[in-house]
């Protein structure tokens, strides 16, 4: 399969899946359950709206989602009480799997722990800072998983790379980190993944049997790590990307994007090294130094970024015991 072929056959628009009755019918026929998970840290301005709209449209009106979870990293604002008020099952990340010796903070940590508390066969992850939230963000990602036989993982993007009417090519809508860091990296060693329009989008969905077999970098590297591992283990054909139109969210400053890029580079190099695609002659540093000008002085600011990686959830015995009916799937996963 050529790389272009994948782009053409595995790229969808959310409107392809807007027949919610059909999605619910297939979900019930296949006896599947769906969990929607929001990782949060101080998201009081947007989380309630996200929960309300999802509950209204995809729980009450069309029962496509079976549970809505919020996994919080320790918000100091009203995120937790607001999410509880509107009916989400709220978990504090540190309270999940308390027997683990290490406790980390980070989006990847929340996503990984969500696997433990969520009950669904399909897990949908949405960022909690989307201002123009609409239920298409969820059903657009769930649709291909239900309707397309081979697809096990879906990823959102938010722009059309090519205008259909005129054929005029315009920018893909990838963010600065995507276009300056991630896509060039993918192009160097994993060119197939360069077709993913927005590899860093925080909205994706997958069957549990994919997610619980993945390593989870705890920080910003989680999206990159996830794509690399799925691609490496199952290939591009289990993935699809879905155009969800416009997404409006909080904008991050350049220094924050620098920290994000640092984590992504770290994740990428470690992965490529483990797969013996590159050889590093020394360990990677985990400190990022950034500079800010104050009068005539450049002030260095050092960030110690943790790059721990959580192991596949399926390797935890407590997890396997929690889902006894999945024994067959677990067994298959542990096979050769």
């Amino acid at each position, binding site marked *: 399969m050529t790389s272009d072929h994948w782009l053409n056959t595995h790229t969808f628009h959310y409107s392809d899946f807007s027949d919610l009755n059909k999605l619910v019918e297939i979900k019930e026929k296949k006896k599947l359950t769906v969990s929607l998970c929001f990782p949060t840290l101080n998201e*009081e*301005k*947007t989380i*309630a*709206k996200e929960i*309300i*709209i999802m*509950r*209204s*449209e995809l*729980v*009450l*009106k069309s029962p496509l989602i079976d549970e809505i979870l919020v996994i919080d990293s320790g918000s100091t604002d*009203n995120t937790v*009480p*607001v999410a509880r*008020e*509107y*009916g989400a099952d709220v978990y504090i990340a540190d309270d999940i799997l308390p027997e683990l010796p290490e406790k980390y903070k980070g989006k990847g940590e929340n996503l990984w722990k969500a696997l433990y508390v969520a009950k669904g066969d399909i897990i949908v992850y949405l960022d909690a800072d989307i*201002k*123009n939230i*609409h239920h298409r963000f969820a059903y657009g990602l769930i649709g291909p998983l239900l309707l397309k036989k081979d697809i096990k993982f879906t990823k959102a993007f938010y722009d059309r790379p090519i205008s259909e009417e005129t054929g005029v090519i315009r920018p893909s809508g990838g963010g600065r980190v995507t276009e300056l860091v991630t896509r060039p990296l993918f192009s160097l060693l994993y060119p197939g993944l360069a077709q993913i329009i927005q590899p860093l989008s925080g909205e994706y969905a997958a069957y549990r049997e994919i997610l619980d077999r993945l390593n989870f970098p705890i920080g910003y590297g989680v999206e990159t790590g996830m794509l690399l591992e799925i691609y490496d283990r199952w290939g591009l054909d289990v993935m699809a990307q879905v155009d969800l139109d416009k997404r*409006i969210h909080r904008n991050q400053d350049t220094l924050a994007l620098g920290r994000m890029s640092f984590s992504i580079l770290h994740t990428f190099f470690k992965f490529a090294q483990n797969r013996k695609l590159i050889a590093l002659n020394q360990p990677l540093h985990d400190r990022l130094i950034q500079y800010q000008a104050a009068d005539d002085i450049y002030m260095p600011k050092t960030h110690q970024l943790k790059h721990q990686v959580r192991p596949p959830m399926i390797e935890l015995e407590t997890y396997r015991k929690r889902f006894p009916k999945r024994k067959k799937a677990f067994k298959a996963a542990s096979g050769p």
Partner: protein
Amino acid sequence: MKSNFSELKQTVDKIMSIREIILTNVVLIGQTPSQAHSDESKSNSIRSQMFLDRLAETQPDELTTDFHGNPLALFKGASARSHPIMLVAHMDTALGMESECHYQVSEDYLIGPGLIDNSLGVGVLISIPDILKTLEIKLKSDLVLIGLPESLRDSNLKSIRNFLSAWKSPVKAAVCIEGGEIGRLNYFSKGMIRAEILCDIPQEIGYTDKYGLNAIIVMNEVINRVLAIRLPLRPQTNIVLGEIHSGYKHGELPLYARLGFEIHSDSDDMVEDTFGRILEISDDLSHKFSAQIRLRKISSVKAAHLHFHHPMIKAAIRVMEALEIKPIIESSESELSVFLSHRIPAITLAIAHGLNPQKENEQIFIPSIYKGIAQLVGVIKAIDEEGVK
């Protein structure tokens, strides 16, 4: 009307059980631009399409846009003989939202522009089918839900005027829905003229005298003269000065000023008479100052009312009492006046308690919404069960 309102308080909890559906409708309709871009008519606005899309999911018997661009849905009642009940909400906002905005939801408040006037009203209107279904209410009368894209300011209630001019069959009653303030009960409209006085200071080409004739000073004189008009207590007549704009820089001479106002009176003749006197003031001061002072009529409505003892008003007050809502009775020169002038019994009700009206951070107190909706449902049931005769 003899409807039993004792169960209304329980309906508040049942309505709250579908709060997500109601709040989602309010958020989705309110975040959608209320006014179309210049190259398309307002009636084709995205908000009208959103109105239809949301109602399509509730499976109405008819869902369409009328000849004048008003989106509407019809739900047939159990009785073929009963005339329809109309529920309307204007969809434009005083803030003139031409682009998407984003609402915030907190534990107790909905926050964002245009909520009170009138995204909440429209959101509740399109939630009515789900609310009646939840409450297991099946009406005898047909129910017609109408969104009105053009009501405010220069639109001069165009949408409802056009709609009723084309609607030829009898109507049982109508309820106009507004976002706030809960307790609002309008059943009469005063005669009203909405107008503006425009003041332009002529200037010589290429030269502006920094200390010359000042449009703010001229408008100040206009205001003084308008305030000096003697107005009768019977028929009660008032002039409301509502808007003023002038100038653009602290130290620059303003050459333009605009004053927006309304004349209200129980008598249509007094409205016209007062308007004539303001016209005389404009002409007089125009000559005195050698400035261009023009009076422009924007819109008008005729006085009309239901009697206080009308069964629909009595029912509304009983519903409010049952829900411990204090009625606030004032005139309303809105869609209500057009219904009343067509001799259709009508009232205006508001849904919730709000803060910061007409500002970017308008707020709606969420817990008050459910009581406001229970009030609306109580009135609809009373109209349906007992009629308005």
